[in-house]
C-alpha cells in the first residue's frame, strides 16, 4: 500500500509524539520553550560533528545539546546576565558555529533543508531503533522523576522542604530535553522541534482541567499531528516537519473553538 520509507516515517513519528507529549507539558509549565530552541539550534553543530567524525547523528546531537545545557547552567552561576540573553547567546552562536563548520565540510553533500525542516526519506531502520529505545528510556526516566519535577514545577520551596530533591530532578530533565531533541531531529528538523514540544501541549492545556489529562491530550494531539502531517507530506510533497507542525496548529485552533463554545455555554 505505502512505500517502505513512509511506513518507517510513520513508526518514527508516532514514537516521537509519544515522548514529546509529556515532555512538552513540562516545557509549557516551566516556561522552557526558548530553552528548547537553544538546545535545538545547537543540534546543528552536533549534526556537523557527526558527519565529520562519522558518528551516529542522534548520539552526537545528544552530547552537544547536553554540553550546551551544562554551559548554560555554568553561565547562569557566573554572570549577572538575564536568562533569555544567555539563551540567545548560546542559541545563535552554536547555530553560527555549526553553519561555519558546514562551510568547511565541502567534501560532504549536505541536505540543509532536511536538517532544518526534517526529511521523512531520511529515516532508516536504525533510526527507528534509536527512536523507540531512546524514547522508552526517556519516558521511563521521566516517570521516575515525575513527583519531584512536578512538585517543584508547582512550587520549588514546597518540594525542597518536603524532601523531594528538586535540583536533581531539574538536572535530569535537562538531559531528557537534550535526548528528545536528539531522537527527533531527523524527522522534525531542528527549527521545528520546539513546536512539536509546545503546540500539542498548548492545545491540551485548552481542554484539560488536571495535569494527567493535559499529558494524555498532549500525547493524543502529537500522535494525530504526526498522522495528519505525514499523510499530507506524502500527498502534497511537502517537508515532514512543517507538515506535522501545521497539523498540530490546526488542532490547537480547534481547541480554541472548544473554549469559546464552553464560555458561551456558561454565560
Amino acid at each position, binding site marked *: 500500500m505505502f512505500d517502505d520509507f513512509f511506513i518507517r516515517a510513520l513508526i518514527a513519528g508516532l514514537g516521537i509524539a509519544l515522548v514529546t507529549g509529556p515532555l512538552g507539558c513540562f516545557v*509549557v*509549565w516551566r516556561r522552557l520553550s526558548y530553552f528548547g530552541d537553544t538546545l535545538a539550534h545547537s543540534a546543528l553543530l552536533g549534526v556537523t560533528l557527526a558527519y565529520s567524525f562519522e558518528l551516529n547523528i542522534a548520539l552526537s546531537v545528544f552530547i552537544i545539546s547536553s554540553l550546551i545545557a551544562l554551559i548554560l547552567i555554568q553561565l547562569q552561576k557566573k554572570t549577572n546576565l538575564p536568562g533569555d540573553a544567555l539563551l540567545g547567546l548560546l542559541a545563535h552562536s552554536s547555530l553560527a558555529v555549526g553553519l561555519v563548520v558546514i562551510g568547511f565540510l565541502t567534501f560532504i553533500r549536505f541536505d540543509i533543508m532536511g536538517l532544518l525542516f526534517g526529511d521523512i526519506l531520511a529515516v532508516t531502520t536504525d533510526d527507528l531503533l534509536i527512536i523507540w529505545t531512546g524514547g522508552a528510556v526517556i519516558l521511563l526516566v521521566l516517570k521516575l522523576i515525575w*513527583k519531584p519535577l*512536578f*512538585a517543584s*514545577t*508547582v*512550587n520549588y*520551596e*514546597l*518540594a*525542597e*522542604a*518536603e*524532601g*523531594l530533591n528538586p535540583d536533581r530532578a531539574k538536572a535530569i530533565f535537562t538531559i531528557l530535553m537534550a535526548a528528545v531533541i536528539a531522537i527527533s531531529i531527523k524527522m522534525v528538523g531542528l527549527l521545528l522541534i520546539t513546536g512539536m514540544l509546545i503546540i500539542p501541549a498548548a492545545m491540551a*492545556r485548552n481542554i*484539560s*482541567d*488536571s*495535569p*494527567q*489529562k*493535559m499529558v494524555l491530550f498532549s500525547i493524543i494531539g502529537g500522535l494525530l499531528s504526526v498522522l495528519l502531517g505525514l499523510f499530507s507530506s506524502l500527498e502534497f510533497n511537502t517537508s515532514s516537519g512543517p507538515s506535522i507542525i501545521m497539523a498540530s496548529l490546526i488542532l490547537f485552533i480547534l481547541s480554541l473553538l472548544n473554549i469559546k463554545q464552553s464560555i458561551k455555554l456558561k454565560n
Partner: protein
Amino acid sequence: MSSENSTLVKLNNAGFKQNDKWLVEGVSLTVKKGKIVTLIGPNGSGKSTTAKIALGIYKNIEGSVEKYTNKVGYVPQKISIDWTLPLRVYDFMLLTENIKDEAIDEALTLTGVIHLKNKNLGNLSGGEFQRVLIARAISKKPELLVLDEPVQGVDYTGEIALYELIKRISDTLNCGILLISHDLHTVMTATDHVVCLNGHVCCSGSPMDVAKNNEYKTLFGEQASQILSVYEHKHDHVHSDKGEIKKN
C-alpha cells in the same frame, strides 16, 4: 536520652546571609515531638528565613541544622503558583506524597474545604487556598509541621478553629510544630516555647517568660505584654462557628 530522641530539628547558631546582608543570625532552637515552638517578631525580623533554614531550603547557611525527620509538612507564607498549570485541589493534595483518598478527604473536612476538592486551585479565594494549604500539610501525617502564618486571610472564627485544629493535630499525631504568627492573642495560649526574633534571638522561653522580658516589651510595647498576662488564666470553653459556647 529520650529527650534527645524526640528532637525533630535543631538549629545551632544558625544564620543566613543574602547579598551581604544578614537576614537572620545566631538562631538556636529545638523542635521536639508533640511540642509547639512559635516564632514571633516584627516584619523583616527573620521569622520566615528561620523556618526555611530549619526546612533546609536555604543551603549556604552559617551554623548548622540537624534534622531528624523526613516526614515534613510545610505551609509557606507566600506561595507563587503558576496558574497556567491545570491543577485541582485534589491534584495539589497529592503534590509531594501519594496519599490515600480517605486521608485527603479527612484533611479537607477538618479544614472545612471538602466541597472544593475538584475545584481548580486558581479559582479559590485567599482564605480557601490557605485552608487547602493546611489540609495538604496535615494530610501527610508529618512528624514535623512548619506553619508560616498559616491562617492569613482566613475569617476570624475560622482562624480560631484552625488554631485549635493545629493544637489538636500536635496532640493526636504527636508531631512537632514550628509556628510563625503575628497574632499574639491566639498563639500564646497553645505554645510551649516562644522565640522572639529581631534579626537575632531577642529572647526565648515560655510565653510568660517572654512576656516579662524587657527586650520583648521594647519590641512589641507595654500593651503586648499585657495581652499575654491576660492569657495566664485557663480557658474552659470554646466558641463554635455560630458563637455557641462549647465546654472543653
